[in-house]
């Protein structure tokens, strides 16, 4: 399927659970998951199934309530090195220019100016934002802002890219364009990363993922993991036309419907 054979899993969740409000609310419970090296794992689930919370735990922004969550074999304590996140709300700093926002991670890490210039320039170019370096986020469209968010994450050269519904707040057309751009970037061999991609869009998960993990509603648990039959590089149009696409779509849709608690239906 994918070019590289997957070896030891990069991220392992074992019997992981996360409770909120002194245990009154369970985000997820008894959750087991393995993320393989350089794969794109899409996690789909109904809203409130704890998928974003799981991602925040992997990012070291929240602690587990129980169980284990390992990154490269070691438990996660605080934001780990080699992990970068792209946020649904973009999370750009309004007081920094496009360039300074894109360089944020590298600047914090104390990278030399020449390295920052080279890497940030490279990725801004890649997403078509060359020439916008001195603009401020408020001067950009939503799609352009999220491109900056993506560049900011890629520029630190992370091993693992965490995507928290990155395209959910964009309009349908922009979303599709960005999905294709992301595919194109990840298909360059040297840019290939382990990616955990949270989404509530089944189509997005099928288009982007190597595997899809379907989560149940709160308390969240992994219900099924689906291996996708599409290789890389991917042609979005061809995949959409593939009969297996409709089949997968219907199957996941059915799974999600079943995963939804009856009272919420």
């Amino acid at each position, binding site marked *: 399927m994918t070019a590289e054979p997957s070896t030891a899993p990069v991220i392992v969740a074992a019997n992981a659970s996360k409770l909120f409000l002194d245990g009154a609310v369970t985000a997820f419970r008894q959750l087991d998951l393995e993320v393989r090296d350089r794969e794109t794992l899409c996690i789909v689930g109904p809203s409130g199934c704890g998928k974003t919370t799981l991602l925040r735990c992997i*990012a*070291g*922004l929240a602690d587990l309530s129980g169980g284990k969550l390992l990154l490269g074999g070691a438990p996660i304590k605080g*934001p780990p*090195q080699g992990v*970068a*996140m792209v*946020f649904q*709300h973009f*999370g750009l*700093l*309004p*007081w*920094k220019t496009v360039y300074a926002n894109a360089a*944020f*991670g590298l600047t*914090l*890490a104390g990278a030399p100016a020449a390295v920052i210039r080279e890497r940030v320039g490279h990725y801004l170019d890649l997403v078509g934002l060359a020439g916008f370096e001195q603009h*401020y*986020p*408020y*001067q950009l469209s939503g799609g352009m802002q999220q491109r900056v968010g993506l560049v*900011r994450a890629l520029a*630190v050269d992370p091993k693992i890219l965490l995507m928290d519904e990155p395209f959910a707040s964009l309009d349908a057309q922009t979303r599709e364009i960005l999905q294709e751009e992301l595919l194109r970037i990840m298909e360059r061999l040297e840019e290939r990363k382990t990616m955990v991609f949270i989404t509530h869009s089944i189509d997005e998960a099928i288009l982007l993922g190597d595997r899809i993990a379907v989560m149940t509603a709160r308390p969240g648990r992994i219900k099924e993991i689906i291996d996708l039959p599409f290789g890389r590089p991917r042609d979005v149009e061809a995949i959409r036309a593939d009969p297996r696409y409709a089949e997968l779509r219907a199957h996941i849709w059915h799974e999600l419907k079943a995963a939804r608690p009856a009272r919420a239906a």
Partner: protein
Amino acid sequence: MSVSIQTGTAVADGAAETALARKVAIERRRQRQILTVAIRLASLVVVLGLWQILGAKVDASLFTTPSAIARAAVVMIKSGELWHYLWPSLVVLAIGLTLAAIVGIAVGLLLARFWVLDVAFGSYITFLYSIPSVALVPLIVLWAGFDVTAKVVILFLFAFFPMAINTHQGVKNVDPKLIEVGRAFRASEWQLWTNIVLPGALPFIVTGLRLAVGRGLIGMVLADLYTAISGIGYLIVRTAATYEVDKMFVPIVTLGLLGVTLTALLRVVELQVAPWTASAARE
């Protein structure tokens, strides 16, 4: 074939349309500006005219006319009298505001950063801010006498609280999502403050500064009135005592102009240091 031709002209039309739309928008904005200035001028003429007519009918020892004020102003500026009284007040204002800004921002930041300090001292600040600052003026005069020190202390007292409280609020209001972004990119505590918390709190701090200037001007005049030896407030007291109403209005108008100028100056500073807030306000 026909499709490509159509798109070709469509693009050209699009560019022309954009240029035209921009031109129309600029023209409309310009007309609006001219109209705004014209209305302001007309309003000023009417108000001053009415004042002139009505003012002339009142006893000159109680009220005055704009023309009389203008004449008095020319005299007072030429003789240096206005400047003689204005200067000490400006010095007090500058020292008091600077101290209030520095100490106020520092206290606001410390209370916001250290939970223990907030719990220990936060309520005093709220309490002291709730007391009308005027009530403390006699006490300060008792302690610091009638000279410049007392005036600076009074002005500081007026300007300090809005500074400290706004800074504190500003830090508390920084978007937690942005803080999380900082943490996700492994920012140290110092980096978090310099990159996210301080710039995020900046609009509140500038608002605090604007409030501090307004209250500072009140404090300045009040200090002059109470200590009544020098300063622009003293000029008002003295001219009022001698029924020179036209001369009395000169420092009053000066104070108004001073307030407007300082506020406008702060807006310029705000545009310079925080352009993103200005864009938000425009929308």
